[in-house]
């Protein structure tokens, strides 16, 4: 469907912002693949454990709960990523004219970025799950956040094509590092210094979000009650 929409669009205009048809299709295909790293359900799983009181058992177990959850999430992401790679393969074999190949170095940086995307996303999930210490049911809250975060990540449309005020907002928030930034690297749209700057900001966000998560969970665990457990 995406191909047909954009084919129609590019029939009327030669370029859309800085995008040509292959660059746009590559962006959207890669967005679907990276989405596999963003789709894990840690927030809901952990929030359910907090809500049901099952989290109490995690508190007394002799391992780090966060690491254990992260391992679960990473394993499922890996499987999901492999499945989504099939989509890429279909394009590569049957519709190669719609893909724009990355340079070798950019592909290498993109692969290095994958664990960072996963970590960033896991931290966002932990923050979302931490809300469950104060609000019993986070489903409605998480639906909102996930919808908005996905859009502001550039899942539907690259954020440099957003209306000006939304682009400013999206560039200010950490969500762009989930999809837009890594694909811009893959699509050869960023210069060397811009890539370095982007990675540093991404690392900055990971540190900031780690601190927020730590503080939030510290306060949350103090408040946590599990009656009857």
């Amino acid at each position, binding site marked *: *469907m995406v191909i*047909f*929409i954009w*084919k*129609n*669009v590019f029939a*009327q*205009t030669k370029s*859309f912002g800085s995008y040509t048809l292959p660059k746009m299709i590559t962006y959207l295909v890669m967005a679907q693949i990276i989405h596999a790293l963003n789709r894990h359900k840690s927030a809901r799983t952990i929030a359910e454990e907090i809500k049901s009181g099952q989290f109490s058992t995690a508190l007394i177990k002799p391992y780090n709960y966060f690491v254990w959850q992260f391992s679960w999430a990473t394993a499922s992401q890996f499987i999901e990523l492999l499945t989504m790679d099939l989509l890429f393969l279909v394009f590569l074999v049957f519709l190669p004219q719609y893909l724009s190949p990355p340079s070798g170095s950019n592909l290498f940086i993109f692969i290095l970025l994958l664990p960072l995307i996963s970590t960033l996303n896991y931290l966002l999930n932990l923050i979302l799950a931490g809300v469950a210490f104060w609000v019993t*049911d986070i*489903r*409605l*809250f998480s*639906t*909102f956040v996930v*919808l*908005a975060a996905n*859009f502001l990540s550039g899942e*539907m*449309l690259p954020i440099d*094509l*957003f*209306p000006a005020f*939304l682009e400013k907002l999206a560039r200010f928030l950490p969500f762009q590092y989930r999809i837009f930034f890594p694909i811009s690297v893959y699509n050869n749209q960023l210069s060397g210094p811009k890539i370095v700057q982007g990675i540093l900001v991404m690392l900055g966000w990971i540190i900031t979000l780690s601190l927020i998560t730590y503080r939030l969970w510290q306060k949350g665990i103090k408040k946590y009650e599990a009656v009857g457990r």
Partner: protein
Amino acid sequence: MKLWAAKTKHRLKLYRYILILSLKETFIFRINTLLVGLAPLVWLGTIIIFLTTLFARISTLGSWQFWEIILLTGVHEIIFSLSWAIFSSNLRNLDRTIDRGEFDLILTKPVSPRFLATFQHFNTIGLISLVNSLVLITVSFFHLSFSFTFFRLIGFILLIAIGLLISLHLHTLATSLTLAFIRAKSLGDILWEIYEIGHYPAEIYPTKIRYFFLTAIPVLLFAYLPTAFLLGKINYPWIIFALIILLLFSKAASFAWAWGLKKYQSISS
């Protein structure tokens, strides 16, 4: 005929109770319902931003103008939200109903299992989503300068009703596999994804694909046909075409349900 009328009257009475019960449930958790209902608003917002961005650089998409596509989006949302409110959430959760052994209970009730499995709960959140779509349609009506006859309007409403019924039959077809194999929910999920194809004008798709989604998996009948008909882009024979597809899918759904029920094996309780 008399028997059919009595059966329909009985089912309508039953559905009235289901509706009242679901509404009462909604009012218990009203804040939760309201907030969950706002999620489709965020989603609609993203679609509108997407279309606005596209139309900032192009004048038409598949020969449709911006407000025509907004109208199409509104109609698509009507079918989506009504499907969600009335039957799709029930049918998509049938695997859980079977898992918990509740389908056995449904089978023992003195009413058609297909009716109960399809309409056992009315999802009021879908109604909130419906309000969003009606607002979208009203706004697009104000921006579109076109006139239509009374018969066009009737045809439009009729085509929406046909679209909704076809959506019901498509869901029943997918769910029938759940009856036979239990873990076939992903088929329903795929169906939801395919629904998205109907979000855009049929003209953007190549002819073969267009006809595939008008006949084999007729998702283009949901919103495209009613909207194109109202806008005068297609004519009255398309209503007959939609009725034929409806009839075929109605038969196929009945057949598939009967087959699924025959294959069904209780796995719980």
